[in-house]
């Protein structure tokens, strides 16, 4: 990976390649006995823009977390690009995670740290721990962080503390942090659930642009049906930890959503009804 970084610095290869994701009969049972996922199998091709929809508690977060190993599958295998995540631990798991970007509902920034160092977190897996400890990023890492900030329009805030930013700005910084990893796949767990409608659309557009320009595989957990239809091309519906829908997102009908939710559509299932 170090050679990759050098070649990127020289500007002669695209930042990253896009990876497929494959789940084979994946089940997750939490230590308290909750069965969060039951026998989930699916394949996502490189460059797809996929939404995972379902009610709260249906297992969306669990599914997306098994992909980078934040949650360990109890059964089955998860493969991301060349890595079989379910068989990895320690250094090899961290190395794989280095290629998997992730953003969160709560942004998960270090609030008292400036934007620059928050974004440099994206280089952890790609730089020597020694340099990190001394606080000396390489020129290439610095460059990647600044370019990522620029690409989400947050470069001017590079020296601001994270707690001085608005919610939308925080999520953009979080996207920049993930892009700084030069990821081969991007995971988003309810990325707009804490944002007001205009800002939510802005962040969804950013994600669509990343998918379009870089051809990056993007998986988004979302519980709002209009955003899923508008911004993603494929939709996976979860109910009680099982896949109950898998098809094109734009053409999904209200009846499809009712089937996923297991109840009639309500006003808070869409973003624009709330606005």
């Amino acid at each position, binding site marked *: 990976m170090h050679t990759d970084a050098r070649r990127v610095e020289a500007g002669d290869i695209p930042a990253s390649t896009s990876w497929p994701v494959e789940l084979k009969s994946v089940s997750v049972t939490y230590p308290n006995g909750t069965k969060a996922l039951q026998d989930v199998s699916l394949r996502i091709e490189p460059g797809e823009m996929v939404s995972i929809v379902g009610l709260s508690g249906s297992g969306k977060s669990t599914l997306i977390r098994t992909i980078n190993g934040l949650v360990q599958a109890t059964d089955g295998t998860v493969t991301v690009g060349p890595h079989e995540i379910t068989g990895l631990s320690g250094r090899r798991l961290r190395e794989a995670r280095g290629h998997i970007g992730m953003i*969160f509902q709560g942004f998960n*920034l*270090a609030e*008292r740290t400036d934007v620059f160092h928050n974004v440099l977190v994206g280089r*952890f897996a790609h730089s020597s721990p020694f340099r990190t400890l001394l*606080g000396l990023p390489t020129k290439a890492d610095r460059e990647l962080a600044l370019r990522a900030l620029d690409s989400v329009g947050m470069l001017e805030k590079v020296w601001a503390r994270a707690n001085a930013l608005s919610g939308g700005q925080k999520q953009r910084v979080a996207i920049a942090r993930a892009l700084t990893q030069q990821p081969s796949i991007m995971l988003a767990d309810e990325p707009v659930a804490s944002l007001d409608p205009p800002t939510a659309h802005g962040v969804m557009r950013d994600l669509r642009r990343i998918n379009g320009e870089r051809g990056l595989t993007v998986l988004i957990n979302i519980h709002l049906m209009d955003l899923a239809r508008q911004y993603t091309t494929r939709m996976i519906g979860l109910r009680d930890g099982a896949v109950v829908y898998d098809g094109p997102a734009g053409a999904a009908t209200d009846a499809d959503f009712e089937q996923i939710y297991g109840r009639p559509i309500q006003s808070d299932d869409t973003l624009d009804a709330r606005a």
Partner: protein
Amino acid sequence: MTTGELAVPARPTNRFRTALIVAAFVAFTVATCIPAIGGIDLDVGAIVRNWRNGAGKMLQLLQPNFAFLPRTWAPMLETLQMALVGAVASAIVSVPITLWAASPTNPNSWTRITVRTLVNIVRSVPDLVFATVLVAMVGVGALPGVLTLFLFNIGIVVKLVSEAIDSSDHGYMEAGHAAGGTQLQINRVTALPQTWPLFANQWLYTLELNVRISAILGIVGAGGIGRILDERRAFYAYGDVSVIILEILVVVILIEIMSNLLRKRLV
């Protein structure tokens, strides 16, 4: 608004807590009233009988002998040095130990429990006991005083800051793990700036405490102003004692004012 009966659910009663309060009350009464099982035998009569004696001492204390002041400079300086050296040394050492002792920054429960246990043992030893033992080990002077303050401060900082880290929100750590960082990288780049104000607060607090404590430590031979305080008291020179007490009071207040000013700038 609707009128009529409100169906207010019954307020849950906490029998356990009530029982605990009653038990504590009973235990307190028993322990203080029955001398035979270790109660405190307060002899109010003694206070009245010794009143004349005490009043005389008080009069002497109210006449501070300011001519003695110059002789206190050097010991007071030594006290301040002990307080500062103890606080700074413990501040440096407290950082890695604290991060070891908090669960978000150290997921390994074995090392965490070991560090916590050691720190709790250090904390449970009274500072005067440390000082007495250390004076016996390394001899009379400032060194045992500094070592006592160092151990005492580590106990305070590690316990209070690691508990604050445990109870704070640390979503940023999840992001660090998701990006493939090691715990050490995450601690260095995100946890440390995040917890730095917690540390700074406790460091200033230990500095304040140290000035107060090191005034006492001299009594068991651990250097500083306490040594000369003890000496003057032994000579019944209450005018000198009173000057020393006033001086300690002024210094403690000054340090507190300074650290309050610093604290405001930190947050």
